[in-house]
């Protein structure tokens, strides 16, 4: 039993949705940490205020991140949560597991921590919730022995994540899982040893539906797309119509670039006008599919609002064939250039997106060695405040 009654939390045992309080109850009898967590949380509910504080840096040897230090400000009342750190464990790509893998993780976390987890954290990690400082290193040893490693925290490359892509989705325009895994391995050092001005996140989505929200939540968003014609199976279109679908109002009218015609017989798409929004394909998955010349658009810079307001990623490379090893190498080089420029010019706690806003996209492009393209902007400037370069500078750019 918890040290104190938890009448407010117990209210949250009710109702059809799975209850996190029930999860706490599952372990509390064998975990004093969780008893104290329940107690402190009930206090929070009563008082309507949190009781955590951050404090000294904690972690495992040789790593600069992966652990979030957390301490109770009610240590005397709830000593078992005096330390209550989280460990971020790098998830397998697209969060696939076997039952064995899950049981292994359960065993390790039963042994070293609170037995509570987040499956998963918002960045994608397996979050092991509640560990004492002394348990961090042994827990880490058991995890690595089992083939798991820490994820990111602090000013480093953060744990990349991806949609399941080709593993179970017919729309994946490149191999998200492979690339996510490859990048994670390639940049292990950047992940574990914070050396950037601030965090840097990668998210890989196989198509413009963007099922890992990369355009809103990743410093670099790699979103699959295609260049050629949408693949159309007219017989299947006819089946949809027969099945009662109102193709005009459901599909034609919703096309943002008004480039679909439907004449009752077949569907006709003006692919040069298509903006690759996915809607028609989403609506008729059996009849339509992305084209065959597939790749991705690379976008840069999204983040949460602190401190200059939230950003969405914006187009950096309109189209890249991520199914081609050479182009992937080029991309890695570009990433290197971006990190170099950011290292040199970024302020402390300045994300890449904010850096671009501050120095200007054109200067940033010069710095990373990319040519400006009209696809990078929704419209050219509307103000006349152009900084003209000297002719020498211009030549330098070439």
């Amino acid at each position, binding site marked *: 039993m918890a040290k104190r009654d938890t009448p*407010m939390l117990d209210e949250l045992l009710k*109702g059809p*949705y*799975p*209850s*996190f*309080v029930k999860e*706490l109850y599952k372990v509390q009898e064998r975990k004093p940490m969780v008893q104290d967590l329940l107690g402190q*949380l009930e206090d929070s*509910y009563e*008082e*309507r*205020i949190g*009781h*955590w*504080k*951050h404090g000294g840096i904690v972690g495992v*040897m040789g790593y600069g991140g992966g652990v979030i230090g957390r301490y109770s400000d009610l240590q005397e009342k709830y000593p078992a949560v005096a330390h209550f750190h989280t460990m971020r464990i790098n998830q397998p790509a697209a*969060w*696939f*597991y076997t*039952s064995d893998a*899950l049981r292994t993780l*359960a065993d390790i976390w*039963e042994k070293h921590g609170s037995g509570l*987890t987040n*499956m*998963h954290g918002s960045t*994608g990690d397996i979050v092991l*919730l509640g560990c004492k*400082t002394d348990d961090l290193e042994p827990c880490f*040893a058991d995890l*690595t*022995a089992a083939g798991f*490693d820490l994820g990111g925290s602090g000013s480093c490359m953060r744990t990349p994540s991806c949609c*399941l892509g080709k*593993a*179970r*989705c*017919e729309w994946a325009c490149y191999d998200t*899982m492979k690339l996510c*895994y490859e990048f*994670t391995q390639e940049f292990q050092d950047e992940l574990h040893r914070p050396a950037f001005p601030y965090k840097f996140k990668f998210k890989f989505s196989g198509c*413009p539906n*963007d099922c890992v*929200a990369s*355009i*809103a939540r990743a410093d670099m968003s790699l*979103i699959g797309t295609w260049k050629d014609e949408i693949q159309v199976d007219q017989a299947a279109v006819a089946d949809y119509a027969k099945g009662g679908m109102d193709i005009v109002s*459901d599909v034609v009218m*919703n096309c943002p670039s008004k480039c679909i015609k439907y004449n009752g017989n077949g569907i006709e798409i003006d692919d040069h006008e298509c903006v690759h929004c*996915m809607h028609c394909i989403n*609506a008729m*998955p*059996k009849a339509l599919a992305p084209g065959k010349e597939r790749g991705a658009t690379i976008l840069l810079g999204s983040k949460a*609002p*602190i*401190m200059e*307001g939230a950003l*969405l990623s914006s187009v950096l490379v309109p189209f890249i064939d991520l199914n081609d090893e050479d182009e992937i190498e080029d991309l890695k080089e570009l990433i290197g250039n971006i990190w170099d420029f950011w290292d040199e010019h970024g302020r402390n706690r300045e994300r890449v997106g904010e850096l671009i806003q501050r120095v200007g996209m054109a200067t940033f492009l010069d710095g990373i060695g990319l040519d400006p393209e009209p696809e990078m902007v929704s419209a050219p400037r509307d103000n006349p405040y152009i900084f003209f370069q000297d002719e020498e500078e211009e030549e330098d750019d070439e």
Partner: protein
Amino acid sequence: MSEAPAKRITDIGPPHYEKFLPPMVKENYGKWKFHEIVKPGVMFHQGETGDKLFTVRAASPRLIAVDTFRLFADLADKYCDGYLRFTSRNNVEFLLTEEANIDPLIADLDKEGFPVGSIGAPVSNIVHTQGWVHCHSAATDASGIVKAVMDDLMPYFQGKELPAKTRVALACCLNMCGAVHCSDIAILGIHTKPPATNHDNLAKQCEIPTTVSSCPTGAIRTADVDGKKSVEIQDDLCMYCANCYTVCPALPLNNPETDGVSIWVGGKVSNARSEPKFSKLAIPFLPNNPPRWPEVVEAVRNIIDVYAAGARKYERIGEWIERIGWPKFFKLTGIEFTRYHIDDFKHAGWTYKRSTHLKF
């Protein structure tokens, strides 16, 4: 940090995903032809070969105990050779090759309190954050509100219709770890008063120049208080962003009376139809009212009801509002439009109505 073991393994990265893929997925990798939603919570993907992979998706509170790992593992062994995954919205998915196993699996999941849904349904799990369970800067709890709101939205999780996907997200402070800034409905914990200042500890706990420069509005300046080096906050410049608190624990913002929840609407992430959009302010402040935050539950439900009644098929909340116009959104939902809705941050001018395109 404790002593390291003799032979430390480091920098191995995550396990290779191939180890965890079901054989049918390996065979059909990159060769799926189409998918079909069988019923809420269940879909199958068909490969070029004709193979069918069934997915059953169940709700999860995200904060789960290792006991639940074992439960999921057992169910996966029982029904699908031990293969399962989690989604980007923290649901759990069982990957079946035998159609006959679907209903028994669902029955077991129901019994254990993990109802099936989300696939093909308009509402999925609420992406959320730590709240009072683990974060120091939370202006509200996360898991508690999520539980209360999802209890209320359960019919939509289980397939009751809405015009389109309706993504709800929650973040317990402006850091927005849940990245609620692009959600159909976002629940955001906010502070509404400037931080207190612990002048006694400040110089010890914090680096003063870093603290001063952390403030986006320049509200913080150095000050000598009773002979101690400290800082002073100009209340009228403070917008309670907690950026200073993140770098300086001696500037606590948490306050039981004035912390609470704001509601934002109309964001989206996907590129489907319209471009991704930020969520916009709907309700500036609702009180923290644990354990079930009835005002928040009611506010979310009200927006969804009005949306359900008015939107066209495929229209996300933001798309619907852009069609009918914001004035009508406020009218239909009965939400009061206040001075707080009018942007006064950096790009405010862009949000002013710069045309006569008005509806009367």
